[in-house]
């Protein structure tokens, strides 16, 4: 559905995107992840034909965004970051206008507007002036606009930015419900949002793709095995035993019950690290009550990826 090859974008002397390449298959839900200023919005603006690339090839639904921009714009639904709507229009009036602009005709206009108003739960506010809507409701109206012509691809730029937690969850749920019928590209720097809505992420930093991974892979990112072990015994003695193992890093420890401690550990030895720790503790006569994998939180993985990307570029 989306093919981006060596996408380069320059604004004057500033290079916003440096040979970005990624693909999104039809039916996929992909998150474009990156810190502010990483190049997410520029990428989305190019995909939605608002800006052209300086060089590189970008195809959406098989159409080139420069030479077939009319065809591309027909098959995408785009929600810009700040949801710029016409405040003086009423919600249904705005959606009728946008539906007609997107090529919907006659009776289908009303049907489409009714359908999307139902989808985004704005039925009750259809006659409200857009300027009187809260930020969350405006976001829904923007989403309704993106959906009104039932596009194959939804491009959502920071759809929950500036929303309170309740509104954020509502929008997130809405996006999740759209996964079945649409290919979705969603940009964000809020990781739980990406986690909840996407199958895969493209991590972008300083205009460069630093990783393309499934959510599970992202969590396991890194070159060390991370796990937790629950041990009964004297904390100081346990720590001494653990410190004997070369390369083992004790990241954290907490007391779970009297004389029961949970240690968060990491080791570069993915093959034998856990077994060695277990063996040492048992040999030292400690009771090992449990041992479990400890994936990275998405935030940790993200920070590591960004740092890895920065290190590579240096």
């Amino acid at each position, binding site marked *: 559905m989306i093919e981006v090859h060596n996408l380069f974008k320059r*604004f*004057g002397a500033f290079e916003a995107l440096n040979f970005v390449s990624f693909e999104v298959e039809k039916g996929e839900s992909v998150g474009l992840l990156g810190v502010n200023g990483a190049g997410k919005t520029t990428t989305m*603006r190019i995909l*939605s*034909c*608002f*800006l*052209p690339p300086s060089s590189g090839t970008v195809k959406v639904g098989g159409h080139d965004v420069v030479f077939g921009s*009319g065809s591309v*714009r*027909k098959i*995408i639904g*785009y929600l*810009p970051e*700040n949801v*710029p*709507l*016409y*405040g*003086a229009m009423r919600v249904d009036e705005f959606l009728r*206008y*946008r539906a*007609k*602009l*997107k*090529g919907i*005709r006659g009776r289908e206009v009303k049907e489409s507007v009714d359908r999307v108003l139902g989808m985004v739960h704005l039925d009750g506010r259809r006659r409200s002036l857009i300027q009187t809507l809260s930020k969350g409701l405006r976001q829904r109206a923007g989403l309704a*606009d993106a959906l009104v012509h039932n596009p194959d691809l939804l491009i959502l730029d920071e759809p929950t930015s500036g929303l309170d937690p309740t509104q954020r969850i509502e929008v997130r749920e809405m996006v999740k419900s759209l996964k079945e019928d649409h290919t979705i590209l969603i940009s964000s720097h809020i990781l739980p949002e990406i986690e909840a809505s996407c199958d895969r992420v493209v991590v972008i930093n300083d205009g460069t793709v630093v990783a393309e991974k499934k959510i599970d892979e992202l969590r396991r990112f890194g070159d060390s095995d991370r796990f937790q072990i629950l041990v009964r015994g004297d904390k100081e003695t346990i720590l001494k035993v653990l410190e004997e193992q070369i390369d083992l890093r004790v990241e954290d420890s907490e007391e779970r019950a009297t004389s029961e401690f949970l240690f968060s550990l990491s080791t570069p030895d993915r093959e034998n690290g856990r077994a060695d720790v277990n063996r040492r503790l048992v040999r030292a006569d400690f009771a090992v009550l449990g041992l479990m994998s400890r994936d990275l939180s998405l935030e940790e993985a993200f920070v590591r990826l960004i740092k890895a990307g920065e290190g590579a570029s240096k």
Partner: protein
Amino acid sequence: MRRFFVLFGRELKATFDSFGFFLLLAIVMGITGFTFQNLLQGTGGEMDFALRGLQSWLFWLTIVLTPLLTMRLFAEEKRSGSFELLMTAPVSDAQVVLAKYFSSALIFATFMLPLWVLHALLALFFDAEPDWGQLCATSIGLLGLAIVFLAVGLFASAVSSQQLWAGILALIGNMVLMALGTLQSFFDAGSTFSRFFRYINLSEHLGTALGGVIDFRQTLVQVSLTCLILFWTIRSVEVRKWR
């Protein structure tokens, strides 16, 4: 073409729904009435002279009014961010520019209504005998001038990100266009340059129209100028693609 009419309709509705438009119309009507009364007193009750004087005041109205009508068209879309929403819909840059242009031309035409209403009222209630032919020529002459100025205003709005700057730029553009005609006096009468500047002398065009004559050569110049400025406007909207 369908999308052009959707955009055209939205522009018209946005204007006719706004309080600002009716306020402006009321101000224009008020000033028109006030100016007519003053002219009537100044000419000792000679209605024909007063009406002719009124028509020439409309020339100044055209210069000032056209920037007011066009300054928001692109600048406001850019300021609010809706420009992005508009330009990612399946519409061409030319469709957007032309829809905005023709809607502003139609809106300008509504400002001619007070002049026609005034003539009709004078004919109905004061037994005046207005020169309807001359009124038609004046209206066409003013519209001819306005189509050029509206194109200038739209161009100014397309290259500005703030309404105020768009308005000021359009006003300056209108003045420059009016001043271009005076350049003919710097060249020998009958020379190519002199004739060129005479042809594009918009003041002379309006003078001809106020005299009750429609010169289609002048109309052709106005339409050509308009097309040229609209072409630049479309290019300036496209410029975002090449920055």
